[in-house]
């Protein structure tokens, strides 16, 4: 059900690694639970972050949540298109709805995160 080329966190972020760049967003499960996204706070570019840090926040019409850092690195870009229209997080969470990009300190750190199959099992377990 989840894209196979991504890694996943227990806080329902996904990360896509291309060379040493990690692109981060929230999963289908997270966007569905939050409902209509009304605001995405983008993390400050240039900030050094560690795995598990809070990167930024997201608000929906019914809730607010934090977005965490899946792997250590430096923030290099926020998805500026979400500032005016955050609805892409709902409509295309693994594509146009990405939230920020990281220059990863150690791209292999991502391998300790869940793959799609394990994340699916994790979701099934959470639902119980």
């Amino acid at each position: 059900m989840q894209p196979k080329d991504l890694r996943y966190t227990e806080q329902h972020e996904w990360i896509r690694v291309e060379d040493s760049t990690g692109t981060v967003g929230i999963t289908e499960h997270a966007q569905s639970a939050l409902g209509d996204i009304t605001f995405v706070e983008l993390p400050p570019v240039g900030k050094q972050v560690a795995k598990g840090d809070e990167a930024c926040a997201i608000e929906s019409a019914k809730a607010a949540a934090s977005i965490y850092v899946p792997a250590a690195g430096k923030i290099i870009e926020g998805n500026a298109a979400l500032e005016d229209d955050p609805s892409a997080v709902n409509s295309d969470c693994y594509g146009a709805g990405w939230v920020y990009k990281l220059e990863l300190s150690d791209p292999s750190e991502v391998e300790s995160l869940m793959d799609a199959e394990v994340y699916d099992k994790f979701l099934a377990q959470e639902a119980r």
Partner: protein
Amino acid sequence: MVEFGGWVLPVQYEGVLAEHAACREAAVVFDTSHMGQFVITGPRAAEELAAVCTQDAASLRVGRCRYGFLLNKQGGVIDDTILMRLGDERLLLVVNAGTVGVDFAWLGEHLDAAELVNRSAEGWAKIDLQGPKAFDVLACHVEGKLREMSYFAVAERTCAGRPCVISRTGYTGELGYEIMAAGDDTATVFAALLGDERVTPAGLGARDSLRLEMGYPLYGHELTTETTPVEADAMRFVDPNREFIGAAALRRALEAGPKRRLVAMRSQTRRRAQTDSAILASGDAVGAVTSAAFSPSLGVSIAMGYVRTEHAAVGKPLTIRTTRAELPVETVDTPFYRNGTCRAKLG
């Protein structure tokens, strides 16, 4: 689903933004059965209610509704209500869910010859049909005159074959009706309305963003026993020169001038404030937010809150300190949303 006033209510069906838009553009139906309905009857019902409610029941004509308050002796708001005159000796008071018990006790204490019945406790329910297409939809189901009902009119009508009380009132700023009936009958009407493709069911999320776009207060937020209608900018609904519980306190409050006032604030961004966020003027805390939401119609966040009176003028820059950021806002006139159809003339 979420707990609200002792009831469990849906925050949304399909989605808050879609439901909000459906109300502004077409029609939605809310299940508002959690709200309280009291029937007050007897030859002295209007006269006695007039001494308890800010609404002058004695001057309220049969077939009309009036918004107002139950106040304590200090002028604090026990509840905000809509009083409906169904007959010479029969009135209906619609109250908030969380205050049903307190209101019923207060009225019981202060009414004498009038008979007071908590009709909600007998299983009466309520739904609200709201939106510019509300009349077109409801007209398909109602026997008897509907078009003639102007804003804040009330009438007893047969709807979907069931006996109902229908008032042309609501909490969204749009053309709409509140429909009250016995529980089973309300369910029948609800199903009939949902069977119309122009109607979308809507939950508490959209109800809150719709009411806040109109600057309508919500009990427990803008209105509490610690706030007076003077502070809440609600004296247009109250004649303080009439005698009712709390009137003397309101006259004193008007004389002294309120120390704080309710203001409406518009942000420049989509980030929203939180209830209880501090409101700052030139760095000093001057008040607190009582309600905040993203406004789908305006595309920015909006809020209401109390500030010290010297900061309450419209057009003033203020700052709201949220847990994550400082939001620049400007005090504005209400309603935030100006194209509401609630007063539409149906000719």
